[in-house]
């Protein structure tokens, strides 16, 4: 029973971060209608920023959120503005050109980071990295609890932004109907920059939050890109609420898989869930939550 509860707790804590990753992806998915296959790689760049600040200046990873998020926001805006949006004007057969572009962007980001930082494993070990506290028999990792707390705050902030602000409303309107939104005078191009920037900043935040407990190397992006789309498919493509459910579900599934099946299956569990959802719940949790 304790093992079960322990697994439940660690899965849920990890799920909070996954939700953040998934929300970033689903936001982009909703507005641009494309899957961003550079999502994990963008997160990886954010992690390297955090790592550099830590290694060079000893900046606490949590503090570097204030650097990594804006920096990656700018990176996201740049990618959208100079690489993705121009593709909309070109007449081509493949509608997936933008998706392919994100693959290329992901490759470039990975290799540039390898060029700078080599393939070696890096980490930002802090005094609290291994700290835990106990509730009964169940151990809680301190950094993961802080992460969950920050992730929840960011989720709330994101929802307030989407619901209350004009820009947020424009994003939602564009996601629902691009043409109608631009007829209503919304500058669709600007919305796409902001959305991609925002989605990137969110995943960068997740990466930064992971830094105290995780290790880092250039190829870490690919697996997280895959996790991101599994989360989105679980939640229903384009659904922000769904991404939260999807993130937590994936976190729990990975934790239970690692505990009760085998560690080496951890990466595969998400992918198998992906196929199962396609089979039995096409459309993901969105079908149930309707948001």
């Amino acid at each position, binding site marked *: 029973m304790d093992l079960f509860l322990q697994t439940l707790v660690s899965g849920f804590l990890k799920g909070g971060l996954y939700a953040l990753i998934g929300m970033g992806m689903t936001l982009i998915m909703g507005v641009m209608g494309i*899957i961003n296959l550079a999502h994990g790689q963008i997160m990886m760049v954010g992690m390297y920023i955090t790592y550099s600040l830590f290694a060079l200046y000893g900046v606490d990873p949590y503090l570097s959120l204030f650097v990594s998020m804006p920096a990656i926001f700018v990176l996201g805006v740049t990618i959208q503005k100079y690489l993705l949006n121009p593709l909309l004007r*070109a007449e081509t057969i493949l509608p*997936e050109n933008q998706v392919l572009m994100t693959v290329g962007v992901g*490759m470039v980001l*990975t290799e540039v980071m390898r060029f700078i930082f080599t393939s070696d494993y890096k980490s930002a070990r802090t005094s609290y990295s291994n700290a835990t506290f106990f509730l009964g028999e169940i151990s809680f990792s301190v950094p993961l609890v802080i992460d969950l707390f920050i992730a929840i705050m960011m989720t709330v902030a994101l929802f307030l932004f989407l619901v209350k602000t004009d820009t947020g409303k424009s994003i939602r309107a564009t996601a629902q109907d691009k043409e109608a939104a631009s007829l209503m005078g919304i500058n669709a191009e600007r919305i796409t920059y902001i959305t991609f920037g925002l989605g990137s900043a969110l995943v960068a935040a997740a990466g930064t939050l992971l830094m105290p407990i995780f290790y880092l190397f250039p190829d870490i992006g690919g697996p997280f890109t895959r996790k991101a789309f599994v989360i989105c498919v679980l939640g229903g493509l384009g659904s922000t609420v769904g991404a939260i459910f999807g993130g937590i579900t994936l976190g729990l599934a990975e934790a239970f898989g690692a505990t009760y099946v085998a560690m080496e*299956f951890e990466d595969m569990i998400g*992918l198998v869930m992906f*196929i199962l959802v*396609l*089979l039995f719940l096409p459309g993901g949790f969105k079908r149930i939550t309707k948001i």
Partner: protein
Amino acid sequence: MKVKNRRMMTAPLAALLFLLVFPLFVSNDYYLHLMILALMWVMIGSAWNLLAGYTGQVSFGDAAFFGTGAYTAGLLVNHLGWSPWWGIPLGGVTAALLGLPFGWICFRLRGAYFALATLALNEIMRHIATIWESLTDGMVGIMILQTFYAPIDSPIGELSSKTPYYYIILFMAVFSVSTVIWVMNSKLGYYFLSIREDQDAAESLGINTHYYKMISLGIAAALTGLAGGFYMNYMGFIDPETVFSLHDISIMAILVGIVGGVGSVYGPAVGAFIMVMMQEAFRTGGFGLLDAFAEYTGSQFVATSASLITGAHVLGFGVLVVLVIRYMPNGVVGDWSRLMKFILGRFQRQV
């Protein structure tokens, strides 16, 4: 419906003639090896193009089918003691058997699901090949004895051991391109194009879009599996990281299609040769030219940059992806007139 007049046939026929006599004049193993790889990519690229360029269903996980074909061949040798050559046709069959039910699942949904699912399938297959050690030997991979490894005596002199492989893959590549041409001139072709253009309209023409998308995937998977079976025979060694590689197989397949020209019959064939040469040029630092140049000038700077460029060949590849999609989204064949205008314009201005 694309290949109508004779004039459009001259260039491909001339190319085929050239390819037929190539090994008679070039016996260098290295060049033959590059040509064999390029021809293999003609197959894979044409298959990808049938599904993506003509049916509009972009696969990001061709390695799943390629690797399945390769592993079929390898496992037949290791576990049943069959000749690896059986692995080519059977590799095509197993790849199709993987593709059809997979297509049945994912094509029920429209939109990004198929692309995502192919990516997932790619990873799942790689994990299975890695984890299921009792069957596949996991990361160790599969090694088989190649059929041709020594130079072959012939009436016209000694031939490279690669010559038989060359002609086999040439035949397979021609078979693939012909299959695509044949398909695109039949009912299937019209149905594939209709699906690509508008799925609702296609349904209203009486087209079972779900079924025909599966057929397209089945054909593409089978051709890719055949290529995988050949790869096992030719290389004699496979492991999960090479044949189920996302970058080296799946993304490469997409690049071959895009660089050559999506939705054109000969586009992927052209793209295959360009991409194999590019890959090799990056990998070897301009076929060793950079190194030679560094030695010639004795410049430390050139030597360093040569080793940097060789080290960063994946970066070069990534940059290429970005540039091609940004500036030549219809590929060499699709954007041929634009490309010519650009080059000729430059030229005329200089004159």
